[in-house]
């Protein structure tokens, strides 16, 4: 029984981590059809921003929730202005450029900070369920994932930017037709996607090993989840994260982490074969 609750928490944690990891990528991919291969490095930058500012004496929560998204958001806008905007509509070229960018960021961070950096401890501590112990921070991550999904939904649903974003998603020319400057829409979108990724990096910093190459461990999984989810940013990311997170965590508990990964990948292939347009296009056709 207690084990069941702990397991359920693990599954929730797996889903929440995936949602946090993927949301930024999903926004950029869903709205701009840009596959950002530097996504993992944005995540890493978020973690570094958190760790560096926390080590410099900034309160850990401010470092994680404010500095990380702000810093990576600004990086995102700079990247969009200097690189991505020249490449719209050229899927492969953006992949190549963002791949180059990811190497560049890894190289820069290594040059500046070296190969290892002192991390920050996990805040909040643990709690007991019967004779099992689990981390309060896990619950915090779940709450943050819910909050993120909620905010993205509210923004898309109720704000002017959300309206523009939805219109752009359905038809890229729509924004222009509405008399808006698509350049700005794209810039803001890329910045927001990057900021959310930075937030995810900040949130994962206290529970991860932080090294310049850490992004590589996340990029493939995030990419597969986003594409498996389909074009609806929220419904797609949430449903694919829920599916893959559950499968991965349960398989990892029952067998080994290797098979957890392999089973996740196989289920992704089966999913794409059955629903070639992603989950959201099949089941949540008119959702956000």
């Amino acid at each position, binding site marked *: 029984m207690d084990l069941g609750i702990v397991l359920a928490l693990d599954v929730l944690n797996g889903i929440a981590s995936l949602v946090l990891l993927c949301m930024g990528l999903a926004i950029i991919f869903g709205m701009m059809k840009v596959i950002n291969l530097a996504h993992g490095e944005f995540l890493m930058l978020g973690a570094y921003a958190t760790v560096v500012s926390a080590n410099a004496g900034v309160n850990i929560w401010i470092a994680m929730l404010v500095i990380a998204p702000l810093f990576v958001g600004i990086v995102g806008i700079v990247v969009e202005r200097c690189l991505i905007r020249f490449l719209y509509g050229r899927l492969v070229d953006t992949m190549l450029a963002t791949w180059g960018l990811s190497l560049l960021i890894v190289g820069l961070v290594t040059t500046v900070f*070296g190969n290892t950096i*002192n991390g920050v401890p996990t805040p909040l501590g643990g709690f007991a369920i019967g004779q*099992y112990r*689990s981390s309060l921070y*896990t619950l915090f991550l779940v709450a943050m994932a819910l909050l993120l999904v909620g905010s993205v939904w509210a923004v898309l649903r109720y704000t002017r930017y959300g309206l523009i974003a939805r219109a752009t998603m359905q038809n890229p020319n729509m924004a222009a037709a509405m008399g808006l400057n698509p350049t700005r829409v794209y810039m803001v979108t890329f910045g927001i996607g990057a900021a959310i990724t930075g937030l995810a990096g900040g949130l994962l910093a206290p529970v991860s090993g932080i*090294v310049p190459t850490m992004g*590589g461990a996340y990029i493939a999984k995030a990419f597969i989840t986003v594409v498996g989810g389909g074009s609806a940013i929220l419904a797609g990311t949430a449903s694919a994260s829920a599916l893959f997170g559950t499968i991965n965590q349960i398989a*990892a508990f029952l067998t080994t*982490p*290797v098979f957890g990964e392999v089973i996740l990948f196989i289920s992704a292939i089966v999913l794409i074969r059955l629903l070639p347009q992603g989950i959201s296009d099949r089941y949540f056709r008119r959702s956000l």
Partner: protein
Amino acid sequence: MSMLRREFLKGTGLAAAGLVASPAILRHTALGQDAPILIGSLHDQSGPIAATGVPIVNSLILAVEEVNAAGGLLGRPLKLVHYDTQSNIQRYTQYAQQLALKDKVLVVHGGITSASREAIRPVFGRYKVPYFYNTLYEGGVCDRNTFNIGTTPAQTVEKLVPYAMSKWGKKAYIIAADYNYGQITAKWMTKYVRDNGGQILSTDFFPLDVTNFGPTISKIQAAKPDIILSALVGGNHTSFYRQWASAGMKSQIPIASTTFGLVNEHTTLDANESDGILAAYGYFEELEDAANKAYVTKLKQRFGADMPYIGEPAAGSYEGFMLWVEGVRKAGKTDREAVTAALESGLSIMGPTGKVVIDRPTHHAVRNAYLAEVRSKKFVVLETYEQQPPSDTAMVCDLVKNPGDNKQYVIEI
């Protein structure tokens, strides 16, 4: 911080310019009497394994400078020809060929993972360049052209496991990186736990890119072990200690590891995530003897305060280098056969880790092993085990009897 770092790098680059020769310059070096003796180095300076590679290369640079400051070797200066293998096996093979055929170095120190060693070892065997592998590894390499200076499981696991069991209890849960080092180390852990009357509850292996240990932590709690034996490796696996501590488990079940500290876990983790973890290696930066103090001071002076923690791979490389230098001195020439014979003669050096001798039948090092505990982001050495032989590899390898042997044995346990 970043500016400092950059300044430091620039300084290092300038200082190193005369020492780490650009291969382009080397292409037309004449092999005259005063021509430098070329020594090859293949270590990852970028990519995931650079965390281990950078201190090794720093240590080698120091070793070269020391020998040169003392008048060189056989009257000739030494020069390090180093390539960044970029954490990529293909580069290892490429640069190994380059060192052997183009730069024509007299000895190579290199390789960090066993995969990289097995990629380049045959190249040096084929082109007859003596090869030093200075990192701790799973044991079993049996090759007269290769010298393995790092510790093997029999030298460290054998000490760590009984110590941890006598302190904490007999039921162990093993978590290890899913590759040969982890697999073989887990086997040795299992053997020593059983030999000491204990029990293994489960053994889990993790690919090097696993970062989420939630399900594993639940699984461990369900199994209720007395100790955790860890052979987790690399930056991603550092997450385990974090998530373990954040679940409040650190005060519940203690951890002993043969890998903790390899990528500076004890400094990158917070004290309350790492205090009390036991580890065993052939070297710790905190060793108190004078030789080590001098070595550490020189490295820190040479490379600044940013010199990362010095672990066994860096110290082992320094010693491997000095062993070869002693071998050349004793042989009186740089010829491969003569130097190998000298090294096989029981020649020893006193390095930062203590006395190091080449074991003739296995070409491994007889050396000290140490057991330490993490306290406040530092290792506190608890036990010293003098002159441990590579008894694991000795079970399968005898180069005196079979000098033509050339493979890595899997040791049946």
